[in-house]
Structures are given as structure tokens and as C-alpha cells.
């Protein structure tokens, strides 16, 4: 099994070992470890699952069961930025459906897909907790609100995706 560990970088291993040091069980760091790998690589591949599982002394199957449970852990490659579109009830009441349609028209993709240029992946997300400013979505780490007044073309135009 040890020959699988080099699939993780020394930085990733150091960060994961730091998380392990804070808790009583190695496999308890599973979610943190997956998030660390994702921060470095953008997503979590099968090779990463095997390597992290070996490092945390657990089975790859069990770790994959955890990885696939959480919606912010990506088991497929995603675009440079992930768009988390809120389609929960308060945004729906403020016409999120038509904003979503504009988003689909602008990007040419639907939920679960990535633009051909690899810049954006579109995903639904549970209520983003900004219902007073509905409809809302996140682009990368940034929240965008009151989207019916928003020029989506300008927001998502090339050059806007770097931050």
C-alpha cells in the first residue's frame, strides 16, 4: 500500500497529518483530507482516493462512500470556478427559474456540466442563506445576489473568472 502514498504531494501530506494530529483517530480526518486534496487539485480523483485512504489507514471504498456523500467534494473534474446556483424556496419565489434559464442560455450548460472552455461548472446548492437578497448564486468563493437585475453575460465574461 505504501507505494500509493507518493500520489499525494508533500504539502498535501503535511496538511493532512496536521489534521490527524488534532483528533483521536486517523480516519477521522477523512473529510478534511478530501478537502485538502481538492484545494490543491480542484477535484478528487480515484488515485487520490486510494492514496488518501492508505494514508488514513482505511479502505478506499469507505473513503469513497464519504467523498460521494458531500456535495462540495467533487469526484469529477470541474471548471476553474464552480457556480452554485440556489434553487431553494425563497429564490424560487423571486423567480430563480428564469434566472437559471438565462444562465443556461449564457453558458450553454445545465446542472452537472462544465463549459467547453473549462471555465465554469454549474451545480445546484441548498439555500445559500441570503434570502433577503434573492435570487442568489455563488461563483467560486463569491456570493452574487439580486440576480434578476444582474447582467450575467458581463458577470461571467472572460477576464471575470480569475478571482
Amino acid at each position, binding site marked *: 500500500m505504501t507505494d500509493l502514498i507518493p500520489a499525494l504531494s508533500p504539502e498535501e501530506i503535511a496538511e493532512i497529518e496536521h489534521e490527524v494530529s*488534532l*483528533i*483521536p*483517530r486517523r*480516519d*477521522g*480526518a*477523512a*473529510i*478534511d483530507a*478530501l*478537502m485538502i486534496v481538492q484545494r490543491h487539485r480542484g477535484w478528487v480523483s480515484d488515485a487520490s482516493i486510494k492514496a488518501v485512504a492508505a494514508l488514513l489507514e482505511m479502505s478506499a471504498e469507505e473513503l469513497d*462512500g*464519504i467523498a460521494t*456523500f*458531500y*456535495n*462540495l*467534494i467533487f469526484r469529477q473534474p470541474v471548471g476553474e470556478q464552480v457556480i*452554485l446556483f440556489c*434553487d*431553494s*424556496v*425563497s429564490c*424560487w*419565489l*423571486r*423567480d430563480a*427559474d428564469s434566472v437559471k434559464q438565462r444562465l443556461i442560455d449564457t453558458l450553454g450548460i445545465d446542472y452537472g456540466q462544465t463549459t467547453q472552455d473549462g471555465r465554469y461548472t454549474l451545480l*445546484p*446548492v*441548498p*439555500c*445559500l*442563506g*441570503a*434570502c*433577503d*437578497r*434573492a435570487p442568489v448564486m*455563488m461563483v467560486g*468563493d*463569491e*456570493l452574487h445576489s439580486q440576480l434578476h437585475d444582474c447582467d450575467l453575460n458581463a458577470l461571467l465574461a472572460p477576464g471575470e473568472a480569475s478571482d
Partner: protein
Amino acid sequence: MIDRPLTQHLRQDGSPVFMTDYRGGGGYEGLRRVLADSSPEDCLQQVKDSRLRGRGGAGFPTGMKWSFVPMGEKAGVGPKYLIANADEMEPGTFKDRIILEQDPHQLIEGMILASYALQANVAYIFLRGEYTVAAERIETAIKECYSAGYLGENIQGSGYSLELHLHRSAGRYICGEETALISALEGKRANPRPKPPFPQVSGLWGRPTIVNNVETLCNITHILTHGAQWYQSLGIGQDSGTKLFGASGNVNNPGCWELPMGTPIREILEQHAGGMREGYTLRGFLPGGGSTDFLTPDHLDLAMDYDVIGKAGSRMGTGTMIILDDRHCPIAMVRNLSHFFAQESCGFCTPCRDGIPWIVQLLDRFESGQATEADLALLEEKARFIGGMGNTHCALAPGAMEPVTSALKYFRDDFERHIHDGRCHYHSDVGGH
């Protein structure tokens, strides 16, 4: 005396209050006094006397919850834990975000005080992953606390020590359920756990653990600083204190306001939310998030108190109301909510995992005009079963069915008309889908 303790430090522009300004406004003064003068037992008694009830949705008395934590030698060997539930994900709820982003020290001071009362030496803030701005500001505030000697070894020379960590979650609504949250913090799938054992006795890593909502913990700061009597006097109805109330939907001024417990619903909707937008009429509302029962315009004069709303057949939940207007189909609205809960089921038990998607399919038949009287009967039967306490592993499915069963009660005409007309009569207007 302060009458809006939770929002007293907030600024008009929403910029964050950090250590210098927080202390300038009296922050950490309560902590200093408690550590110098009060025992953990005194603190627990104050919290019990305050009659504070949990602000996360269930409304359980906080002092009673804490009183189940074993103290002294009864706690056995190893740490006890306090966890702030900052996994704000209930549909229509946007109250904790405000404190987490703008006044993180208020939460941290409440957590230190709560941890001291419980003699917990390790605490976590379990923050939903999408709250990126809050994450940065909490990290800054935690660093400030370690530098100022409010966290770490021997806090303010009291001999009491506390480590505080921020955990950024990887998603899923179910993590807001306290035992599921503990599973997630242990690195597992966030399946809820059977109770007993209760987390107060056997929680994180099998050790005594308290999980409290962000707003609940913020209240601790003020109760232990100003006393239980003062706190009780803030409420204008049966319950103590103030509450972060909110309204979203087609109102003129959607927002979140700190108001006394017991504030009438009409005052919140008409004065603070500014009434309905022009061209929209109020049809109903969910008083405290997506998993509470509908109330109607007949209930506008009720006080926002836990037992008053309970007696009216709903729950105060998170206190952030979602407003249904006359231009949106009530069936489409509960379809949206049911879809959310179907998606967020952890999948552990069959009635929830398979039952809620069945409800979505039935609601879709109404929206597409295919529903029959038999579908209506089936919908009622299944919603009642899935919503029956004890029929599912945790409270997610019963919560999910609250808007469905109450819609069947209050908007039955809409269900009948969809069957009769063979279509959704809102489709030509906004809000169909």
C-alpha cells in the same frame, strides 16, 4: 439597559466588528467578570433561570439541555466538547450569517462562556462551506482571541483553558441535525445517530458534547453579562429575550431584524418587511423556515412565541418567515421544498430516502395536470406516514412533510382545481414552472 443585544454592535455598512471595536463596545467584559466571580454551576443556573430556548429550530430549553452534561468526576477521563452549529441551511433562513460575518466575537465570547459553564476544553465552530466571508472573519477573530488571552491555556489567569477550532463543512443540509453534525465532525458520512445515547453523554468521539445554534450561543454572552432577570424582561410575550426574525418572498423589504420574543407576526410583516409588494396578496407563510407548517392571514395577530405558534399548528423554527403570495402556486411551492428535502435526505432510512421522492412525483402530477382524486388520497396518506414521528430515523422527513400536510389543509381548493381543470392555473402567471 440594552434592548437589542444581538445586533448592538452591527454597523450600517455590514463591515465586520473585530477585537478593538468589540471590546470598545463592552465585549469580553462579561467573560472577564464570569471567570473572576462565577462558578460553572452559577452560570448553568443563570441560563436555566433565563428560560432561553434553542434558536436553531427545535426550541428546546438550553439550560435543561446543558444540565444533562456530566460534571466533575462523573464526566470520566478526556475532554468535553462544545460545538456551535453554524451550518445554516434551512430553506429561507438567513439570520446566523449576519452574526457570523459581522460580529464573530459575539459568538466566540458566548462559546467561551458556554464551554466554561460545561467545563468543556475543546470547542468547534461547524460552519457551512459556502460561508466563505464568515470563514475568513472567524479565523481572524479566533487569532485575535488567542493573542488577547481569551483562548488557549489559563484564560485571563483563571486556570480555565479552551481550544477553539473552525471546521468548514463539505456540505449537506443533514449536517445541521446535531448527531449528523457529530458524525461529519468525526469524518464520516453525516448519518444521524439514534438517541439515546444523547450527545450530552456520548457525543463527539464518545465524549459529552453540547451542540448549540449560533444565535443561542450569542444569547449566552448577554445572559451571563446582564443576568437572567434582565433577559426575561426583554420578551413581550411568554418567552424570554429577543430573536432574529426575518421575512423573504415578495414583500417590499425582505430582511432580518432583532425584535422581542412575542412580537406579533403582523408587526414583522407589515412594519419591518414593509408589507406585500404591489400586485401581490398574502396567501400564507411558513413561520420559521422550510420545515414548518403553513399559517395563513388568519394567524397574523399571533405572537411569535414557541408555544403560541405551536398551538396554532406550526413551529416557530428559525423565526425567518417565507411568504407565499397569490401569484405563486402553493403546490409548486411545496414541490420545490419537497424536492429540496428529497435531495438532502441522507439515505439511511427507507421512508425518507424513497418516500420524499414519491411525494415529489405526486406533486409533479398535479403541476402537469395529470393528477386524479386517487393521487390526492395517496398524497395525503403518504405525507401523513412519512411525517409521522417514529416512522423515520430522524426528524428530517417529518419536517419535510410539515409544509405538505399544511398545504393540503389550507390550500385544498388548489389541489382540487388542478385535478378538475387538468392543469396548473398559475402557469400563465409568474411562479409556474
